[in-house]
C-alpha cells in the first residue's frame, strides 16, 4: 500500500510540476462555463438545475481526459524512467492503480473547482441537491472510465501525441456506442444481439440516466467495471511491452 500511495502522490504532484495542471484546469473551467451558458442556455431554460452544465461533460472529457491520461505511461517509456519505476519493489498493478488514482484525483480537483456554478444555481433558485450530487458523482465515475481507457492506450506507445489521438478515438466510440454513428458501422453485418451489446456500452446513455438523478446500480457497476477492465488491460500491456 505504501508504494502505491507514494506513486499516487508523485504522479499527482507531477501534474502541478508542469503547466499542464493550470492549462487543463483553465480550459476545462472556461469551456464548461461557456458551453453551459451559451450553448446550454443556462438562464433561458429558467430551471433551477444543472442539466445544462452536466450534459456537456462527456464531450469535454472526450478530448480533455486523453490529454491528462496520455502522459501516464508514454512519458515513462520515452524518458526511460519506466525501467526505474518497474525495478523498484512495486508490482505492475500497484504502479497502474497508483497512476490511475492520481489522474482521477486530478479530475476531482477540476470538478470541485466548478462548484461556483452550483452556488449560482442555488442562489437563483431551489435546485434538487441530490440530483446535483448524483450528477457530480456520475460525471466523476465517467471520467474514471475515460481515464482508464486513456491509460491503457498510453501504455501501448512512447509517443504522447499518438496516445492522445488513439485514446480520444477509443473514447469517442465508447461515448457514442448507442448512436447511429457507431451502430451503422456494425448494423449491416452484425447480429442484433451484438448491436444490443454494443449500444449498452454507451457512456452517453449511462451518464444521461445518472444526470436525471437516477443512480441506477447497473450504471455504477457499468462504469466501475469499465474502469476495472481497462486497469487490468493496462497491467497486461505494461507487463508485455515494458521493455519495448
Amino acid at each position: 500500500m505504501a508504494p502505491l500511495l507514494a506513486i499516487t502522490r508523485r504522479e499527482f504532484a507531477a501534474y502541478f510540476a508542469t503547466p499542464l495542471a493550470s492549462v487543463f484546469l483553465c480550459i476545462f473551467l472556461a469551456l464548461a462555463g461557456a458551453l453551459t451558458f451559451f450553448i446550454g442556455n443556462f438562464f433561458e431554460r429558467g430551471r433551477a438545475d444543472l442539466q445544462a452544465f452536466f450534459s456537456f461533460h462527456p464531450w469535454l472529457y472526450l478530448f480533455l481526459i486523453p490529454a491528462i491520461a496520455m502522459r501516464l505511461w508514454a512519458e515513462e517509456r520515452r524518458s526511460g524512467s519506466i525501467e526505474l519505476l518497474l525495478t523498484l519493489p512495486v508490482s505492475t498493478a500497484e504502479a497502474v492503480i497508483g497512476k490511475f488514482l492520481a489522474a482521477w484525483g486530478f479530475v476531482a480537483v477540476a470538478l470541485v473547482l466548478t462548484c461556483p456554478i452550483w452556488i449560482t444555481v442555488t442562489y437563483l433558485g431551489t435546485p434538487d441537491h441530490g440530483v446535483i450530487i448524483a450528477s457530480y458523482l456520475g460525471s466523476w465515475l465517467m471520467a474514471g472510465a475515460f481515464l482508464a481507457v486513456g491509460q491503457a492506450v498510453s501504455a501501448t506507445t512512447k509517443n504522447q501525441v499518438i496516445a492522445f489521438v488513439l485514446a480520444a478515438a477509443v473514447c469517442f466510440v465508447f461515448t457514442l456506442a448507442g448512436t447511429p454513428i457507431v451502430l451503422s458501422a456494425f448494423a449491416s453485418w452484425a447480429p442484433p444481439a451484438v448491436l444490443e451489446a454494443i449500444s449498452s456500452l454507451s457512456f452517453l446513455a449511462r451518464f444521461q440516466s445518472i444526470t436525471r438523478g437516477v443512480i441506477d446500480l447497473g450504471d455504477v457497476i457499468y462504469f466501475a467495471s469499465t474502469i476495472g477492465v481497462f486497469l487490468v488491460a493496462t497491467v497486461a500491456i505494461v507487463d508485455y511491452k515494458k521493455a519495448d
Partner: protein
Amino acid sequence: MTAMIALTGLTKQFGQIHAVADVSFTVAKGEVLGFLGPNGAGKSTTMKMLAGFLTPSAGKASVCGFDVVDQPIAAKQRLGYLPEGAPAYPDMTARAFLNFIAAVRGITGSERTRRIGWAIERTQLTAVLDQPIDTLSKGFKRRVGLAQAVLHDPPVLILDEPTDGLDPNQKHEVRGLIQDIAAEKAIIISTHILEEVEAVCSRAIIIARGRVLADATPDALVAQDPDHGAVSLTVAADVADQAIEALATLPGVAHAHINRQGPRSKIVVRAEGDRPIADTVRQFASAAPWQAADFATEYGRLDQVFRHITRDVA
C-alpha cells in the same frame, strides 16, 4: 562465501537473436564484479533481467536467494539498480526524487532523513538538491541515479555504467564510494573503462555476443597479455631495428618487437615460456652501443587482453 547473486543458464532471445546466451555465474558478498564487453554484447540485457525489468527467455536469476521472476518484490527490495543512462523523473528536484524513492521503498521518518542525507553526501549532490533533474548536467544526473540506487543500503548493487559522463574527480569519488561499501555487498558494475576494473573490481567477466568469454580476477586477466612478464627497454630510434634483431637471438628470448615509436623506441622482449630473461637482456643491452635505458618488467594491459578475447566474436 555465499552467493548473493546467482545466474544459471540465463538466456534472452529477441526474435532470432540471442542477446544473452546461457550465462551462468555467481557473485558473493564482498565481491565487486566488473562486467565488460563490446557494445551490444548483452551486458545491459543481463543486468535488466537481474533487476527484474526484462523477463528471461530461459534460465534463472536470483538476488539473495529470491528468484527475480517468481519473487520479484522480495528480490527488488534487496537490490539497488542504476539503469543504463540513469533515467529519473526530469520534472522533479533531486530532493523530491530521492524522497519518492524512499517512500516507495518504505523508508520513513528519521531513517529516511538519515539515509537520504548519507546518499546525498556520498554522491555530492548537496549543491543541486532543489534543482529539477532535467536542468542538471550529465554527471549530476548520473549521481542522482547512484544516490537512488544506494539509498536503502541494499545488499546487492547493480550499476550499469556508473561513471559514464563523470569527470576524473567525480569518477574517483564514485570509485571511492563503491570501495567503501563493497565489503558488505555484492556489486556488479558494467563499464567500458578498463582502468576502472583494475581500480575497483575484485573480479571481471568479459562477455561478447551474449556469452561469457572470461571470468577471472583482473590480475589473472592481465596475465593473459602476451607481453605479461616481458622485459622492456628503450633505445635510440635509429638503432631500434638493429637492437631487435640482436635481442631476438639471445638464449631464452622468443620474440622482440617495437612497442612505441618516438625519439626513443620502446622495445618489448618476450621470453620463451617462463624463462627468466631479465638479467640476460639487461647485461646484453647495456653492453651494446644503443644507449639502452628504462629497463622494466611489463605487466600486460587489460585493453590488450580485452581486444584479444573479444576480437574473434565481435
